[in-house]
């Protein structure tokens, strides 16, 4: 079917952006009343990328001809478990951090970083430089509180991001992944040896046995 060029006539990129912005899901997501907390969006972004990356690794391992065929499923299962571990660890650390960060900021960070002393220093500096003159005490305090809120937003985004992408992904997962990989390796090698003995006895590995190996690899993965 030929697509008529008329459809695209006057359909500029800005109109395309408007169509996306006016679509139902975007309307819901971008609504100033309903926007999700920035910290959770940050963690969601990292987790989504890792999940997609995991999919790439698994499919690439399954198609990789440089890996012997009988080992491909094992390698793919390892990639999958590593990916799932990555996603789970980031969610387990990042989401609670995103939820608790606001409270943490109000109780422990703000009293130290946005204290009365900071306020006095800022006020003195503004008075000294004379860069901003006509304002009332209340207006200054309201503006200071709003600036503090921006600082809080920064804290509430950076903390879960550090928790998810540095602590979970780069510190916790590597330690869990190494023993997990050796566990898989042992299980797989044990299964492989049994099958090899059977194969020597029967002189040929039957199709059913091949299927059995794959099944065992996945059941080993699933049980963990």
């Amino acid at each position, binding site marked *: 079917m030929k697509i008529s060029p008329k459809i695209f006539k006057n359909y500029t990129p800005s109109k395309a952006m408007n169509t996306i912005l006016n679509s139902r899901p975007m309307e819901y997501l971008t609504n100033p009343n309903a926007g999700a907390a920035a910290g959770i969006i940050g963690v969601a972004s990292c987790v989504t990328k890792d999940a997609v990356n995991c999919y790439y690794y698994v499919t690439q391992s399954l198609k990789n001809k440089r890996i012997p065929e009988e080992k491909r499923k094992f390698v793919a299962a390892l990639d999958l478990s590593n990916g799932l571990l990555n996603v789970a660890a980031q969610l387990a650390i990042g989401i609670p951090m995103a939820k608790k960060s606001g409270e943490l900021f109000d109780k422990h960070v703000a009293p130290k970083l946005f204290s009365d002393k900071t306020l006095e220093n800022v006020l003195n500096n503004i008075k000294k430089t004379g860069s901003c003159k006509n*304002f009332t005490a*209340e207006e200054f305090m309201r503006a200071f509180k709003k*600036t503090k809120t*921006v600082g809080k*937003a920064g804290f509430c985004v*950076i903390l879960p991001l550090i928790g998810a992408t540095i602590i979970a992904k780069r510190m916790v997962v590597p330690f869990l992944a190494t023993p997990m990989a050796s566990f898989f390796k042992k299980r797989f090698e044990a299964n492989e040896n049994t099958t090899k003995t059977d194969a020597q006895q029967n002189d040929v590995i039957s199709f059913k046995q091949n299927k059995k190996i794959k099944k065992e690899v996945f059941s080993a993965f699933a049980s963990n």
Partner: protein
Amino acid sequence: MKTSNVTNKPFISATNQTFSKNLNKKVSFGCSKYTTSRALKKEISKNLDGLPKTLVNLGKNTGEIMSILVTAVGTAFVAPLFIAFNPLSKEDKETTIYSALRQPISAVIAVATQVGINKKFNNWIDKLASEGKLDKADLTSQPQKTYLKSIIKKENPKITKEDLRYEIETRQDKAFDTAIKKTKEAYKNGGPTWEELIRPKMYKDTKSELIKELGQEEFKKLSAKDANNKIIQKAADKLKKCFETEASEIAKSRKIQLEEALQEVKIENLVGTQIKNAQTVLKNFKNYAGIGLSLAMLPISCSLLNWAYPRIMEKIMPEATAKKHLKEANNENIS
């Protein structure tokens, strides 16, 4: 010294003591004039230093690019250490270092591809919003900094940093004044309704106040329409009281009618509310679109890494690479 554009309201010479005492009290909402509040926020941010300044800067720049950069820091600096010095790993030192070096290369590629495309996209979206081409994020009354920066730099490539900042602020103020004039004309016969001036945060706050007043049970008994009307009424009363105080001060200082002053305050706040909403929509949109863009770039960055990593390693660690090739060849022969 270039001074910020603030109201002509007399400065109440409160001592620092008064400021400090009042800081921890709950400050009443929304009475500041939009321009005053904007100018003060800019000055406060400029005068902060150390960690508070860093947090405020982070708060202003939240979004996909920040996620990519934090992830890249972890990948480039933390991951190699944990791979190279993992006590549970049984691989030899050379192999672990060979594997660890994949991480910084991967981080550089991720930043180059994902940040690059997100920055370009954000600048383009800022341009569309600033030119008023996005219905839901029309920011003609507050053109985005990136957009103004590109225009000013085209006009005057040799402009200094300070002059550029001043020029951006001046153009933003000019655009804001134009928006005020246009809105005034649009509301020639009667000002905006109080309902139009209620901001989302204020609506939420008033709702929780009403729940506290009536009690959860009583509030639940109200129909959705009644509850909404009550919230709007309550919020409108608060706004009215607040704006009238503000207007009476303006009326006195400029010797104009109270009605005229009230109309001015209402219109400035209406434009301010529209800017705030448009900015929130734009920021949320950039966040979600950024995730989509980064996902779209993943296959490219993965392929780029697979292509670049062995080539770079051949140059950095030729011996380890040769050893790895030999090991792979042996494995292939065995299997």
